[in-house]
């Protein structure tokens, strides 16, 4: 033996034994009864015991490819951590999203056609079409959508991610966030929650008109005058205030309003609009969510399309399917069925009333926040089932992420950074799927307004299985 390896063996055999037990629990008890500080692994068969997936996972651990994956994932996560999102503009979508033509409608999640769309998206499309003036009645709008004269595309293809239906058209407003590190831009609609969850009544259309005519010009001017608003400090402060930036954003909304109020007043041509805008931010707890979504999109896109990377760079649901994308596999969706929200429903409602998960907002989770950072939002934890559940979730998430983003420390976890870079391979290794914090939407959303509860969703395992097989096909078969 080499001197170094002998030394290593001596160090082990002469030092303190710190064991981890993987398997039979009486061995764990045997270790602890000797006074050892032993760990017991919560072990379960990797890849859910599926031999085919296990075979691929094992192949991907061989040194040659493993090194490439590690290097790619290191880079992906490094670029996400380096991301420096700045809110630069609020603008009509068609003006800033290149390729968004006048006959196009973007929607959340993987691609789908009108016939497949759930109520929430259809209603949302109707509101958008009417607000654009392409139709003057809901029936006419639906007819237009059905006629094939409208091109439907996933917002993801245009760097747009939206909560709920994620529906956006040419003249609807979007928040524009630029990553000043890499230059990429993320868009998220300044949505009316009613419209985004599928309603198209007069109130909704009135609000959309107000946004377009009065709200957007003032916010634009204000942001131009400010030279944009840097979002990193805002995101850190929110975490310190007990927000996780997805379901829990009261601190974010308050902060944003505080930072931005004087600019709104300065930019408003008349007092009335300033008051209306400030009242909007004061009344709506969730007002800051689209800003967070656009910021998250900026962060996640910094990791996009890195060859060999197994980091998840998109996660979206269209109310029927739930899909993910993998950095090293480009813009291909891997889908399964969209799940129902597991959580707490308002009195009188239950999961049976709920529509399958919808929306692109889980891009927030891909960027390290939301459900991934559950432990950051202790208030949110009170609706979870058991004491410490939220902390447990984030600890689980550390097992499936490539790294931690120490720029955003979680106070309750001794200031460890949020878990960042959801790794396809780790998800399959552990069987732990990422968690998103989501509102539940009523399945009959025309009668019952949007949200009927809050809880968790996880993407279907099928999506990860398909992605792994595609990864093998692209990278392993090539090498052979």
């Amino acid at each position: 033996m080499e001197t170094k390896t002998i030394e290593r063996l001596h160090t082990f055999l002469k030092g303190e034994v710190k064991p981890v037990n993987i398997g039979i629990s009486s061995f764990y008890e045997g270790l602890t009864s000797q006074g050892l500080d032993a760990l017991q692994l919560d072990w379960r068969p990797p890849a859910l015991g599926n031999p085919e997936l296990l075979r691929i996972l094992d192949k991907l651990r061989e040194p040659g490819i493993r090194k490439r994956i590690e290097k790619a994932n290191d880079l992906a996560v490094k670029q996400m951590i380096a991301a420096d999102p700045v809110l630069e503009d609020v603008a009509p979508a068609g003006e800033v999203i290149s390729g968004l033509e006048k006959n196009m409608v973007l929607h959340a999640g993987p691609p789908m056609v009108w016939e497949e769309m759930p109520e929430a998206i259809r209603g949302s499309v109707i509101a958008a079409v009417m607000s654009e003036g392409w139709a003057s009645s809901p029936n006419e709008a639906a007819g237009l959508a059905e006629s094939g004269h409208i091109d439907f595309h996933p917002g993801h293809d245009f760097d747009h991610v939206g909560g709920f239906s994620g529906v956006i058209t040419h003249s609807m407003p979007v928040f524009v966030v630029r990553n000043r590190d890499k230059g990429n831009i993320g868009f998220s609609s300044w949505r009316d929650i009613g419209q985004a969850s599928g309603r198209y009544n007069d109130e909704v259309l009135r609000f959309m008109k107000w946004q377009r005519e009065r709200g957007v010009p003032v916010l634009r001017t204000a942001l131009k005058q400010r030279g944009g608003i840097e979002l990193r400090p805002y995101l850190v402060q929110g975490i310190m205030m007990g927000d996780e930036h997805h379901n829990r954003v009261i601190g974010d909304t308050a902060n944003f309003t505080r930072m931005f109020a004087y600019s709104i007043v300065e930019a408003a041509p008349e007092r009335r609009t300033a008051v209306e805008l400030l009242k909007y931010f004061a009344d709506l707890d969730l007002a800051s969510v689209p800003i967070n979504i656009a910021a998250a999109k900026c962060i996640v896109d910094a990791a996009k399309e890195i060859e060999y990377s197994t980091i998840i760079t998109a996660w979206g649901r269209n109310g029927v399917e739930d899909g993910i994308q993998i950095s090293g596999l480009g813009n291909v969706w891997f889908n399964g069925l969209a799940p129902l929200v597991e959580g707490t429903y308002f009195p009188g409602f239950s999961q049976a009333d709920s529509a399958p998960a919808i929306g692109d907002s889980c891009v927030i989770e891909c960027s390290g926040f939301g459900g991934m950072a559950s432990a950051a939002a202790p208030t949110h934890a009170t609706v979870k089932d058991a004491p410490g559940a939220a902390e447990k979730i984030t600890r689980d998430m550390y097992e499936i992420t490539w790294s931690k983003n120490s720029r955003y420390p979680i106070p309750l976890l001794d200031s460890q950074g949020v878990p960042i870079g959801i790794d396809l391979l780790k998800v399959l290794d552990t069987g732990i799927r990422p968690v998103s914090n989501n509102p539940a939407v009523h399945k009959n959303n025309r009668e019952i307004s949007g949200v009927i509860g809050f809880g968790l969703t996880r993407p279907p395992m099928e999506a990860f299985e398909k992605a792994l097989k595609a990864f093998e096909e692209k990278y392993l078969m090539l090498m052979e």
Partner: protein
Amino acid sequence: MQKTKIECEIYPNEYRDSMVLMNVSRQLEETTGVKRTMAVMGTPGNKALLKQMGLFVPETEKGTPNDLIVVFEPDAGADLGQVRNRISEILTGPAEHGGGKACAHDGPAAPVYRTVTAAAEYEPDVNLAVVSVPGEFAAREADLALDAGMNVFMWSDGVPIEDEVRLKSKAVENGLLMMGPECGTSLVNGVCLGISSVVRRGPVGALGASGSGLQEIYTLLDRAGIGVTHAIGTGGRDLKEAVGGLTTLQSIDFFDGDEDTKVIVNVSKKPESAVAKKVLDRVSVCTKPVVVCFLGENNSTKFGDNVHIAATIEDAVDAVGEILGQKIITRDDDAALAKVGPVTLRPEQKYIRGLFTGGTFCQEATLIWKEALGEVWAVHSMDPEFELTDPEKSIGHTALDIGEEYFTVGRPHAAIDPVPRIERMEREIEEKEVAVIVLDIELGHGSHPDMAGALAPSVKKAREKGIYVITHVCGTELDPQNVVTQEKILAEAGSVVAETNAAAARIALKILGT
């Protein structure tokens, strides 16, 4: 029937967070006398929600965004005063966690990890993985552990031999110790792994490709007051030609260079000859005395100045004793047998049945019986001529390793789980031709808390049927089960208690009068 009225309570300037209020609503719903209820701040959005749910009454309008509104629909005839009291109780009491369960937090719970990689990442001082998951997954776990810089103790069996070679090569290359697969016992710096007895520390470096053989050696040494530096289990197949003694040679290298080790003892089942030669070549250049026991080698001989070859475990133990100037094994079989009185057998009682949980013990007894009796039947017999076609049915003299996969599939190992052996024993004692049943017990951490107690009823039954039982308990007084206590339980049940496994085998022959 009278339509129930919606009741509305407004608490001015009483702010509660919406997440907390969802929980309050849930607790209220569980209150007797309440059909439906909701607690919200009086924002326009919340009022709209109440309207939608049909829980809005004119008074509700009075609530401002800073006021807490609690509305409820009482059951017919409900005591409204009581409901209101309950509401203020919930609002003023400590916030309950979800499910209404009391929160009993004794500080943060120990973190639980799903993967060995995560454990390594977050607990960097973890230096050993104890692997006992099913064989099809075990190699993967060990590989991840080695990659994370951990040493490995692998109890699991059913691991392909190519995986064993790959894992051990990786371990040796990186100065890590890969004990197993199929490793039953190891003592690492005083820590018991798998099923291991608590023994004193001392000058003997023990290693072995045989779990029960290794445990027998270090417990017998301990009973004579001699301790070990370490006892390294290498795994049952280490001396197969394919594996080439990777862990054995690595351990000998270690012990040879270890100042605290004065004598080395190595035990294994009979190795394949190329590997035996490799091991002997290595020990012949050792700087300290080495005792090598390859079970089934014919003679105890000297090999070079420093190397003692021992044919049996007892010889190996005695050789170590001799080097250290001590006598260890009494070999007084008659005294042990005398304790159960004079031997009386019915004429049809002719056969021995060995029901072992230690693989090496089974093999050792088989060798002893074969020499005296000629034929001994077994599962996976060393002698194909005497292979049991139906493992469920013994023939003539039979020696079974109940720890074999056939008997334990889907269950814990028979050294931990007494059930498979008890079931077999209950059937053996029904057979008229059975004269003697021979048992072994391995004590220590990780083992069954009271194997003697679990076997005692069957021992008694056997004695009532005129069948002799001989048991060897491999363990020490420091074991959680205490060898003296276990032996006493067996003796009281009527078993002969033998000081070694070989003695148990010999006493069985004496009973047969062979």
